[in-house]
């Protein structure tokens, strides 16, 4: 009888302990469902190849945004808090490699939000992304990939034809009547699209316009420059060419006796160009947009932190655009209350926030049918004789 009581007591204690354990596990499980999960953003950018200068600062800038957002508590979607994570893929500035990277990101790694660098790469990746309901943010100067037929595609970049228009507006008073501007663009779909748009904008300002197209692997521009210079241009526009190409192009143009101006309307890697041409080679040329000296809180954060991340470069002001885009994405995710990409994409076209560039929103609905492109003004800088950039004007371009 006594053993039976002791046995019952032991059983009771064991049962209580088991119940407590189960309860504790249940509590832990319940707590885990409101604990932090991870949301991974992919970036497909050139970390090798002719545009290898673009990938590292872009990825570092996005990492800076990831770090900022995570330090502020992450992204709260529904009842879950998400820690952001960034995963990098190398496109090597080659659309076929971008497609391979996209397949890996989407199919193997299960990513739903991708940043893609380059119009040609975005155009190649877009069908795969759309089929998988993946949102793409393209750091690309062309706009042919956005619109009502592509509601999940966003242009996280300024408009190169608008940028050219801003630069030509600044140069026009210094040039004669009907000056000729020649654009030397990549020989791909994006290059031809941008050239067509640039032609319209240049002619609206009273310029004559022509365009030449070169392959991505061209390193000797003497033949095409010989043709271009025979028409005596006042301005050579290098938009969309990577730094390794436009630096050599500028150098060889000067060697062939070209005395006119250059326009770098898709950011400028000034040290690379100066190394090739010398200070006198590009003094008086212009570039836009000049993205630097950010005064907002996120802008100051970016300036002070991006250089500490591998590949980050606070002098590459254009790389602040993907940084700002992630801040806007955070707002859209939280407001949508879901990770569903269709609803988040719809929300992205409606929300706004303050980023490094100031008031941040997606616009362009009147022109493109959906708000899917960043709206910015164009600060134009002139390259001084000392080899520095000096802001000379801010041009507002109505679409």
């Amino acid at each position, binding site marked *: 009888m006594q053993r039976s009581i002791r046995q019952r007591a032991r059983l009771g204690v064991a049962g209580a302990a088991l119940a407590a354990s189960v309860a504790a596990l249940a509590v832990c499980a319940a707590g885990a469902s409101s604990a932090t999960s991870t949301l991974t953003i992919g970036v497909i950018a050139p970390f*090798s190849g*002719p545009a290898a200068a673009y990938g590292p600062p872009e990825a570092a800038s996005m990492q800076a945004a990831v770090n900022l957002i995570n330090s502020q508590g992450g992204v709260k979607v529904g009842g879950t808090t998400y820690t952001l994570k960034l995963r990098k893929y190398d496109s090597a500035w080659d659309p076929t490699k971008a497609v391979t990277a996209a397949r890996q990101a989407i199919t193997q790694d299960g990513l739903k939000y991708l940043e893609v660098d380059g119009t040609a790469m975005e155009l190649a990746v877009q069908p795969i992304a759309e089929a998988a309901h993946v949102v793409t943010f393209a750091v690309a100067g062309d706009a042919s990939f956005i619109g009502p037929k592509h509601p999940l595609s966003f242009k996280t970049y300024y408009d190169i034809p608008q940028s050219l228009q801003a630069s030509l507006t600044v140069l026009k008073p210094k040039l004669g009547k009907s000056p000729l501007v020649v654009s030397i663009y990549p020989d791909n779909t994006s290059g031809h699209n941008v050239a067509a748009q640039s032609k319209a904008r240049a002619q609206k300002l009273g310029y004559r316009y022509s365009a030449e197209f070169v392959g991505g*692997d061209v*390193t000797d521009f*003497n033949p095409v420059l010989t043709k271009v210079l025979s028409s005596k241009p006042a301005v050579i526009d290098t938009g969309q060419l990577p730094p*390794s*190409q436009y630096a*050599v192009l500028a150098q060889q143009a000067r060697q062939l*006796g070209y005395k006119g101006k250059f326009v770098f309307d898709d950011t400028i890697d000034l040290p690379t160009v100066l190394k*090739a041409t010398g200070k006198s080679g590009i003094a008086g040329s212009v570039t836009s947009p000049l993205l630097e000296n950010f005064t907002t809180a996120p802008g100051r954060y970016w300036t002070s932190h991006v250089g500490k991340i591998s590949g980050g470069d606070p002098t590459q002001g254009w790389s602040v655009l993907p940084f700002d885009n992630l801040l806007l994405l955070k707002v859209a995710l939280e407001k949508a209350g879901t990770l569903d990409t269709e609803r988040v994409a719809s929300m992205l076209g409606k929300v706004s926030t303050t980023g490094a560039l100031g008031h941040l929103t997606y616009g362009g609905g009147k022109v493109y049918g959906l708000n899917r492109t960043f709206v910015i003004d164009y600060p134009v800088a002139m390259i001084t004789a000392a080899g520095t950039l000096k802001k000379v004007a801010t041009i507002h371009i109505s679409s």
Partner: protein
Amino acid sequence: MSTAGQVVFNGLSYGATLALIALGLTLVFGILRIVNFAHGVLFMLGAYTTYFVVSSLHAGYVVGVLAAVCASAGFACFLAVVVFRRFTGLLLEGAIAAITLALLLESVALVVFKPVPRDFTGPFQGVVQIFGVHLLGQRLFVIGVTVAVVLALQAFVARSRLGRALRAVQQDPFVARLQGISVDRALLSTFAIGGALAGLAGALVAPMQVLEPTMGESPLLFAFVVVILGGLGSVKGGLYAAVLVGLMTSFISTYWTPEAATWSTFVLALAILAVRPTGLFGHA
């Protein structure tokens, strides 16, 4: 600027580079019956060697050129001993081995040199203007060095003991061996000369363009066209074909488009081969 004159000068400059690459190729094929698809890697190695000697060691451009020649020649000999010695006279097997080797070496170069564009400034940056033609210093240097090298090569092949030995091996390796000529030595010498020429070409163009591990692909393609047009194994034919291709490429790039220059070169090669299958100066 005189456009026509500039086109001719551009074409001669490009033709000179092609000549150096193509002559190395045609020598290796003519004497050893090996189609060396890894030749473009030797060109790239020459360019990178020059870059590192000038930029990292600060040893001067001429030292860089000499280092490039030695490096490419040495590496070519290494490839000859390790790989190509087994395929002498075996056209198909040698070609497959060469293609595989080229892909492997390019992959290694991507890892070692990193796929980041590099460039440096050479010493001949001056420009001389004559009758509206801008004669760039580096391009004049390329043309001058090529002329000197080709003349030296012609004299070497025609008059030197080793040159006569190489011609003997080219005609009949078995009989040459009976005459006491070392075929192995001929193999090494031929590869060394071919590698040196490719490395020299790389060193000469390096200050004019951006360096990437894949930079040898395009020139190799055009060099093959030159070799085929000029006749496999013909030094004179290779030179004339290089000038022809260089001028044609320059002309079409300037007055039409650079892409048209590429495919039209192949059209020209096919057209000439249809009429003369051994090339302009080749022998059946």
